[in-house]
Every structure is written in C-alpha cells, then in structure tokens.
C-alpha cells in the first residue's frame, strides 16, 4: 500500500559499522559490525533493547560519531560530518534552542537554508506547529513546555525542512496515544508526499511495523544485527489485525527470547 520508487537507489549505507566510546578504562564498544542499506523512500526502523546502540548508530549516520571501523556512505560518498541533508530528531528533551521561541525554533532551519521568504518561512512553521498541536504556544519559550510539547516542537522543526533523510530517535515516546497515532499518520502521509528516506528508532514494536518498510533488529552489548525484516506491506489498515499482532509477537520473540546468553539478567 505504500508508494515506493520501484528502482530506488541506495541513499545511505552502513557498512560493517563498529562504534566505540572512550572511557577511563579504554574504549567501550557500543555497536559492532552492523550493516544495512537504505534505499530512497525507504523507512528503516531500528529496534532493540535499551542501551543496544540505536541512538549511537543514528548519531553516526548523522555524522556526529566517527566509526571505529566500517563506513557510512551517503549516495556512495563516505559521511564526513553532520549536515542539513540528514535532519535529526534527538531523543533528548533539551534539543530545542532555549533562547528561541517555539516558532523561532521551527523557523530556524528554514531561515538558515535561506530559500524561502520570511512570510513563507513563518507560514510553514506555523502550519507545522498547528499540525503537532502547538498552535497555542507559538511564542512560548521551550522551558515553559511540557516534555511531550518539546518533543512535538522538535518533530515540527524536522518536518518543515524538506530534508532528503530524516533520522528520528524515539520521537513519539513522550506522547499520548491519540497524538502519537495522529503524528504517525502525518509522518506516513508526508513520507508518501515528499518521499524522504527515514531512519527511525522506537521501542514500540507496533509503531515500528506501522512506520517502517523494514525493521532492523539489534541485540545488546555491543549492538549487533540479529536480523532484518521487511514490513512494507503493513499499514494503518492493518491496525488491530491478526497478522500485525502475529508479526508483533514474532518480533518481540526474536528480540527478547532468542539471545538469552547475550542478554543481561533483568531480574536478580
């Protein structure tokens, strides 16, 4: 049901990626030997237990983390650093710039791009903010927003940009069921309309199946690929259906029961 470019070429590629963080006791491995390719218009969802390296992979693709080994390529070129072609929605609540109002925050990337007139920028920002339900607080500063409102503003800021690639790190985690499903739909609609490529992190398996055209499952410590599966044929119409539920359960089982050795004992 999703409109996909039949001859989609690879937009970015993560090739045997290993990520280390330095620590007092030497480097700590966060991600090991993870590979995937994402074609234009595809929506890849990273799924895995907390701390398995999803955010790290996302940051590496964004150009913030240099691989300890392996490579990340955009359109065949190695990623050299961050850039506005890959817009990130971070997991953190403090990603809005505190010295800008909500509206200014959303206008910020458009202003920087400098392709639109002031009026157009304003109009786009306001309409994006209306979509995420923040019309009431356009001129408020971020520190007066609730957690969910901050995340929504950050989502709006990413969505106005027309970036080719969006990297979203648990963008809907702080949202109520209603807003969440509304924004999921909006995101899908926009994806079809504009055709951006998406790398998405979530903890909700259902959300992953609905949003993603493909799931990439990771095991923890360090993050390694378990498997990758296509979910392109699932869409909102399947909500509550048997087969979505089955797939959900399956994914859950792959993620959490097949690697007892690698998983840390959660209880005791």
């Amino acid at each position, binding site marked *: 049901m999703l409109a996909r470019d039949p001859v989609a070429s690879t937009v970015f590629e993560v090739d045997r990626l290993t990520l280390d963080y330095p620590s007092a006791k030497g480097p700590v491995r966060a991600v090991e030997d993870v590979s995937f390719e994402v074609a234009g218009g595809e929506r890849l969802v990273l799924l895995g237990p907390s701390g398995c390296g999803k955010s790290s992979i996302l940051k590496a693709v964004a150009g913030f983390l240099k691989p300890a080994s392996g490579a990340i390529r955009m359109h065949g070129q190695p990623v050299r650093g961050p850039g506005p072609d890959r817009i990130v929605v971070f997991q953190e609540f403090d990603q809005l*710039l*505190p010295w800008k109002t909500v509206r200014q925050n959303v206008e910020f990337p458009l202003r920087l791009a400098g392709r639109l007139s002031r009026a157009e920028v304003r109009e786009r920002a306001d309409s994006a903010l209306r979509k995420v339900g923040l019309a009431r607080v356009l001129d408020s*500063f971020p520190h007066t927003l609730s957690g969910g409102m901050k995340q929504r503003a950050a989502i709006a800021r990413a969505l106005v940009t027309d970036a080719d690639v969006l990297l979203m790190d648990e963008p809907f985690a702080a949202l109520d069921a209603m807003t969440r499903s509304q924004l999921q739909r909006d995101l899908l609609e926009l994806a079809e309309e504009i055709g951006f490529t998406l790398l998405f992190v979530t903890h909700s398996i259902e959300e992953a199946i609905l949003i993603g055209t493909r799931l990439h499952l990771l095991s923890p410590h360090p993050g390694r690929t378990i498997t990758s599966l296509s979910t392109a044929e699932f869409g909102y119409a399947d909500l509550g259906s048997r087969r979505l539920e089955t797939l959900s359960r399956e994914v859950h089982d792959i993620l959490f029961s097949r690697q007892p050795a690698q998983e840390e004992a959660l209880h005791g």
Partner: protein
Amino acid sequence: MAEVSGRILQAAAPERSTWIDWLRGSALVRKVLVLVLLAAVWEAAARFSAQPILFPSFLETARAFIEALLKENLLSASWTSLSVLIKGYVIAIAGAFVFVSLAMASRFVRELLQTLISMFNPLPAIALLPVAMLWFGLGETSLLVVLVHAVLWPFALATLSGFDGVPETQRLVGRNYGLRGPAYVVRILIPAALPSILYGMKIAWAFAWRTLIAAELVFGVSSSNGGLGWFIFRNRNELFTDKVFAGLAMVIIIGLVVEGILFRIVETVTVRRWGMQR
C-alpha cells in the same frame, strides 16, 4: 524551601495581575534598604574611628560629592573616564570574541589562547607600562592598551569556559543544521553560553574600572581634562580625603547603575526569560 525552589514556587503566588509590579517594587525596596543599611554602617564605622583624614564619614563624603558635582566638574571627569573605559571595554570584548571564535576552529589557536590567558591574566598592569610606553607613547592609546589587557583575558576565559559548557545536544543541533565557523559561534555557542558571557562582562566591567583609576595616574593626561582617576589623585595629593571618597563613590554609583539597571535588564530579557538562569 521557599527561597531555593524560588522560581517555581513564586509561580503561583496569590497576587495575580500585579505580581510583576509587586516584585519590582519589592526588589527596589530591598535594594534601597540595603543601601541605607550600608551607608549607616559606613557612617558608624567612620564616626567610631574619628579619623576624617583617613576615613571620612558617609555624610562628609556626600557633602564633598555634591560640592564636587557642582563646582569641580566631577561629572565631566567621570564622563572622560567613562568614555575611555567604554572604548577599551568594547575593543577588548570584541577582540575576545574574535579570538575565542578562532580558538573554536582550531586546536592550536585554542592552546595558544589558553596559554596566553594563563600567562597574561596574572600580570599586573604595571608590567605593561614600559612596553606600552615604548610602542604607543603617552595618552589614550596606552591607556586603552592597559585597559584591554585588564579586560581581554578574564573575558576570553569566561567565554571559553562558557562555550565548553554548552550542552551537547544544542551543539549537535547547530551542527546538524549545517552551521560551522562564525555562524555556528554566533547562532549557537554565544546564546547558549550567554550566562557565562554575561558573567564575564560583569567581571570585565569591574576590572576595567579598577585598572582605569590606577592607570590614569600613570599615563596621565596631556592637559587639564583629566578623568576620575586624576580627580582622585589630585585630591589625594591635597589631602582632601572626603573628595577622594567622593570620586570613589562616583565609581560605585556608576557601577550600581550599570549592574542594577543595564545588566539586570539584559539578564531579564535574555537568560532569565529563556529559563537558562533563575
């Protein structure tokens, strides 16, 4: 507890429509109270020591202050000093920004700046005297050099450590939208480090005064239009201690005005409004 979790608790104090007015009023009232208290302590201490030639009382100083205002051009002397001070201050702060921005772009410049700061910051202004004389001669240029020395290093240090403390996420957001170089500094680092920068500006302001008063005596004045430092020096030489204190009171008053009005307004419309500082 009311005092520390202050911001939040104030939030919903019963006074609704007038809470801003009330707070302003009360802040002013408190400030005046503090000033009256300090004046009283001063008066008492001076009367107790009973040594007007070393330590004139508040009232004597006030009298001398008014007299100096009316008859001795204290105001124009202050203006002379203030205009040099502002010039030096602006040059130093602009220079520090340029320097620190470069330091953000290259590790080597950063190391250079840090080394320069830790070398020059502890050096007293007199250290510069001969070199300043040699290269810049007498007069305003040398005075400015000394002022810039007093202000540049502490301010650059404040800015540098402010930049270092910018939250990771905000840094990443700036990078993500393609900012680099000066644009990155201006649009991300400076606003994000504004609390530190404002603190640096306050310190710089204070040390600019400390230095100017002392330096005016050395680099002097080529004619009669001396500044506040010169006013103080002259009266000290004629043993008019009350006028010396009047000159110092002028420094204090200018400081209170700048701090209490200028800086406070800037803070209110920036860092406090943005929730970056209580």
